């Protein structure tokens, strides 16, 4: 299970970083979403992986799972979800206003660049 979760985090992070390095708004937002998924699982596992154990103290139970990372991850999910919504709205506004969805500053061009250039 450790290998599975670790590689899931790794693959999502790698894919997220690749997409973030693209220059258009849409792939970058997708990449950030992937990164936040990866970080959510990473936070979740920072309390160690335990299966089938309760998070709340009870009598005659000795194995617990750590409840704090679950609270942390809930906060992180809410924040990243809200942030993604905000960036989609701002990105949409910028795209509709300038008809261009590059995330970096473009040099001033008089002639239109051919479609599909990065």
């Amino acid at each position, binding site marked *: 299970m450790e290998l599975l979760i670790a590689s899931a985090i790794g693959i999502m992070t790698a894919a997220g970083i690749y997409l973030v390095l693209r220059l258009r708004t849409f792939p970058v937002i997708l990449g950030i979403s992937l990164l936040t998924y990866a970080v959510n699982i990473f936070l979740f*596992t920072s309390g160690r992986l335990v299966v089938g154990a309760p998070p709340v103290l009870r009598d005659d139970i000795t194995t617990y799972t750590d409840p704090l990372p679950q609270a942390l991850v809930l906060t992180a999910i809410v924040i990243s979800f809200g942030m993604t919504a905000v960036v989609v709205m*701002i990105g949409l*506004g*910028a795209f509709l206003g300038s008809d261009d969805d590059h995330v*970096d500053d473009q040099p001033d061009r008089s002639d239109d660049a051919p479609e599909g250039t990065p």
Partner: protein
Amino acid sequence: MTHWLIAPVVLPALLAPFIVLAARYHIGIQRVFSIAGVLTLIVISGALAWNTSDGTIMLYQLGDWAAPFGIVLVGDRLSTMMVLLTVVLALFVLVYAISSGWDDRGRHFHALFQFQLMGILGAFLTGDLFNLFVFFEVLLIASYGLMIHAGGTKRLRAGVQYVLFNLIGSTLFLFALGAIYAETGTLNMADLANRVTLITPDETVGIRVAAVLLLLVFAIKAALVPLHFWLPSSYAEAPAPVAALFAIMTKVGAYAIIRVYTLIFPPDLAVTSGLHDVWLLPAALISLAVGMIGVLAAKQLDRLVAFSIIGSMGMVLVSIALFSPVGIAAALYYIVHSTLAGAALFLITDLVRSGRSNLELTPQPPVSGATLTAGLFFIGAIAMAGLPPLSGFLGKLLVLDAAYGTDLMVWIWAIVLGSSLISIVGFARAGSILFWKAKSVDATEAAPPPPATMSYVAVGGLITMLAAHTIFAGQVHGYTTTIAAQLFAPEPYISTVVDTPGKLSDPTEKEEDH
């Protein structure tokens, strides 16, 4: 336990929804409440700073839960000074925003402004790393709204860059927090300081990764080269009062570096050795150089000011990276100076903008009220470039003095002095083109009306604060020296946070409570 320590967080948090819900169509009521809130905050912050000036560590346990289980707010000399600086800056920025009409060019300026204050003040006061993340997010969410206030395509495009960059920064922060929690099992700063020293040398992989990640996150906030790319566009395109308020946001990054790397990962800790002198100091020197060269190269006045912010942050971080009590004291003196000077310059930029069609550094007809604006620009430029007699000069002297005798002294002195010269040339070029060459251009159309008197009062207030910072430099530097001494002797901080009893600290007492 008094509740005053949480007031700087709770007051704006209550005021902002009130402004949105009760006064959303009445700009006058919004202005009154916003100003009244900031004035109250100044009184409270002043009292808090006075209370901690004798070395007292104020602790507030939310819900009376003892650390490390509960969340704590901690007020020591450093955090209360930063809180006071923030609210004083906020007052002048708010006066300018109201007098120039910026707050009425879009919706919800005052509510977002209060949320922004809540985030900044909370980040200064919190004693818990995860809470630091949450307050960072609060201030960032509010800043996204403020950044695109009044709209416009260019501003939205700069906003997209700003938001995306900071989202990546937040993700890195979460990775760092996860790694720290996995290694130590706590996120309370004082508790972390105790536990990090317990890690044996062969198990430090995780905590070293976490320490570097945290430094990266704070360096993004502090706009350290090569993580500064978000700053020039967003500060230049943001509305001027917002950019002036943002002058404190880079300092939040500097504050976090000081706090975390004196308390949790102190410079003599073997785990993180080499992080400051090998990595942070050269990066800070490069950002100082890049910032000041950017001042010389900028083609627009707003970009010029944004690059001078990067340069001054480089200066602050050079001084921080020395990680000696002298260096931190100099850095704190310079932080106050560069916040006030940066904010004043952004507001002056807006005074210039109100009389011109754009901010290109090209000769154009004189702006309205040119004499006063030019005078203010002259003073602001002197302060930012670090010429005598203003506090920038004293701050630079303190930094140079702190660097005297260190290994990299030659580099620090050369780059600090060389970059000062470059920035003087840059500011002089900008000022002479804007205000002197304008005389040679004939006005073709009627000049727009000069800015409101209160706008000049706001800028003048910031300049007055700078002058006071210069005149009382001895006292201020004496106080920052005591702050640095407190930072390098963190035992009272740790014992106050960890040993103060609360709920759960005594199991038998808890049984009786229920």
